């Protein structure tokens, strides 16, 4: 499977994603944001970091870069697109995912391990997980507070487009287990076709038992299915 990881000035999780993809034998290419041609890809990953120093709004400048036109075209043609953290912010600013990521409710940068519950496994990204499986991921963001219109929120819930919600270690989804004030504890969402996933937690940081846990590896393994 061919993958491309897009690199912006300020990306800092690009290599971690490349390592995760490498573990699963993806044929990966790192693609600089100024490129105008995207290599043939089955999967495009927009990694985390602080593209353009988060100037204007997180992800706003990166969303207007050369390569994003190609990413938008590929996504509209059904290519799988995964946006992690700043990548999720870029996808919303580019209009590939609806809604917006606001400043965390407590106004603090949050860097810690959290739990998410897997709520939809019938898709390309989560098919190796079990329904309602609780995963320990890591978050590191200042703007992760997902916000959208009430109509869109209803659609996300009704059409099962929310694969991950923040929960506690037992899988309880409530206000206490919501780290950033995100609507309905949303940690990640799909577009309607479910070929685009944006999520704030970092699955690529959880691919090795030695340094953390391997709860994230199945997200990348699912893509090979």
């Amino acid at each position, binding site marked *: 499977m061919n993958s491309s990881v897009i690199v912006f000035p300020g990306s800092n999780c690009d290599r971690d994603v490349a390592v995760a993809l490498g573990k699963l034998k993806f044929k990966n290419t790192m693609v600089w944001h100024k490129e105008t041609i995207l290599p043939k890809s089955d999967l495009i990953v927009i990694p985390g970091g602080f593209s353009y120093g988060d100037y*204007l709004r997180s992800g*706003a400048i990166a969303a207007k870069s050369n390569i994003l036109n190609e990413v938008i075209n590929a996504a509209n043609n059904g290519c799988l697109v995964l946006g992690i953290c700043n990548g999720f912010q870029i996808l919303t*600013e580019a209009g590939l995912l609806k*809604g917006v990521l*606001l400043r965390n409710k407590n106004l603090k940068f949050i860097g810690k391990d959290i739990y998410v519950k897997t709520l939809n496994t019938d898709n390309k990204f989560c098919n190796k997980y079990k329904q309602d499986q609780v995963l320990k991921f890591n978050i590191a963001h200042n703007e992760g507070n997902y916000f959208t219109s009430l109509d869109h929120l209803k659609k996300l819930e009704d059409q099962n487009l929310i694969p991950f919600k923040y929960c506690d270690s037992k899988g309880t989804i409530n206000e206490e287990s919501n780290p950033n*004030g995100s609507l309905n504890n949303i940690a990640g969402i799909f577009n309607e076709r479910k070929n685009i996933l944006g999520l704030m937690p970092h699955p690529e940081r959880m691919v090795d038992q030695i340094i953390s846990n391997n709860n994230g590896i199945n997200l990348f393994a699912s893509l090979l299915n």
Partner: protein
Amino acid sequence: MKFSIKVTLKKDVLDPQGKVVQQTLQNMGMSMLKSLRQGKYFEIEINEINESKAKDQIENMCKKLLVNLIIEDFEISKI
């Protein structure tokens, strides 16, 4: 021609930064303070002498980049 653009959060969007500034001012004794919302301000100069054409271009800049219309409103004025 020079314009100013005021970008504000929509009414329904939570403004935690504004809230903290408001609380701080109130803690400083400014008890008359009723509400406070924080926003952004841009000054843009463009090469166009026709005012309505210039305004259209500024509006386009707002919609394409400067403003996230899901959460923000904007107001253009000539300076």
